[in-house]
């Protein structure tokens, strides 16, 4: 755990850079995390996924997996990988300021 400054705000993040307190998040922070992870511009499609992730997390306490994202976010899995290369669920969670999806156990 460490404290970093994102878009002028000090926030606590875990060892992999996931924010620990989702309420400290804002859109400028999102843009900064995205840029640091190779996404220079967040398009409407990116926002659709990020906002969906945040909403699911804030409502249910856990972030959806890629499979549920593909079924429910309105963005198919193939496109999710184009928008958020490597790991869409993880990267969208990081940009959305919510904890790393636990996957499952």
């Amino acid at each position, binding site marked *: 755990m460490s404290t970093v400054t994102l878009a002028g705000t000090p926030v606590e993040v875990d060892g992999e850079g996931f924010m620990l307190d989702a309420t400290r998040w804002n859109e400028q922070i999102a843009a900064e995390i995205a840029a640091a992870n190779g996404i220079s511009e967040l398009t409407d499609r990116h926002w659709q996924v990020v906002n969906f992730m945040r909403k699911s997390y804030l409502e249910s306490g856990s972030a959806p997996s*890629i*499979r*549920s994202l593909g079924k429910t976010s309105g963005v198919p899995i193939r496109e999710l990988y184009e928008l958020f290369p*490597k790991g869409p669920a993880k990267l969208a969670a990081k940009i959305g300021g919510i904890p790393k999806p636990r*996957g499952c*156990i």
Partner: protein
Amino acid sequence: MSRRILILGGGTGGTLLANRLRRTCGRDTRITVVDRDDEHIYQPGLLFVPFGLAEPASIVRSRRAQLRDGVEFTLGEVDRVDLAQNAVHLLDGTLLHYDVLVIATGAVLAPEETEGMLGEGWGSVVHTFYSLEGASALREALERFDCGRLVVNLIDMPIKCPVAPLEFCFLADWQLRERGVRDNVQVTFVTPLDGAFTKPVASAKLDALLGEKGIAVESEFATGRIDGAVRRIESWDGRQLEFDLLVAIPVHGGPAYVQRSEGLGNPLGFIPADRHTLRSRAAANVFVIGDAADVPTSKAGSVTHFEGEIVAENVQRFLDGEELSGCYDGHANCFIETGFQRALLIDFDYDTEPLPGRFPEPHIGPLPLLEQSRLNHLAKLAFQPLYWSVLLPGYGIPGVSSHFHPPAGAPARTGAGAGAGAAP
């Protein structure tokens, strides 16, 4: 006043719960179990079938025969649950009303969700051992397999018994060595996770064990497509892996009726529930047990068994108009077969990851945690008769608490001397 408890599913959870409740509820309470067939499979046995270490017929018994006298058994497929009417519709038109509903219908395999899995090569070079037919077909394929690339692919979580794919790798390694053909076979474990398991300490231990046995790990590989014709799997981000024999673990979901039941399940068909009381979020008189539940612990028989005590208590309390008090802590334990007649044991809960130590008594054991031992293997074998004779009838295993940290007054037991919340 006559009351009815309706339990959907006559597998591990439905059976042990029905039997538990039958012992504690008065005769004015009807208990009915619904299932679409009368074949109860001892699922841990599926792992052994491909290696000829278990016969398919030896792991199947009648569901009805596992239920105590006084528990009704109805054969039928669920069409949908009508939460507003407290009723379940079966496909044959039967309508069953309930005072309390327990969902125990588990997880189903959804191979059709992965492009190409059921296409060319399914049953010849593309297999699974997560079903009885699949495990039997794989046995024949493995018997003939003596050189090439064996790829074991966990497609996506959640799956039942998340350690089983690793155990499959270990047992395959063992069998190939016994047959003297191990040098001709590359074994690769392919997983969407970033290591062998989801919990860090156990994952590091299992990664090391895979390494010792010469089993390659391809991690963070999210399979998007299987092409049996050219024997290749492709990840969503464009990586490719070739195989000669693929053992795939299909993605899991809830049974189809969940999607037909408004307000009951999540998009994957699992039932969101309070992780401590195991009451569904859908309705106050609906509870969930076992793999069907969307709670953050493993889909495993041990979990279902431990949940049984809590769900039974809460169902009883609900019917009596009392506040729910049963509290499940996520306790899970699993034996992990590592081949050569040895096994590891892991023990954990929602908050404490698997750690080294001794089980069930700290420091005494006799079973070592996170260490390979012959005793663990023997314990795993000894478990099968206990499953039918102790677990399904709804009793506890002597010395093993449903709680990771037993309530005050009970003998303390935790795995390790270190880690969050371990006993002093």
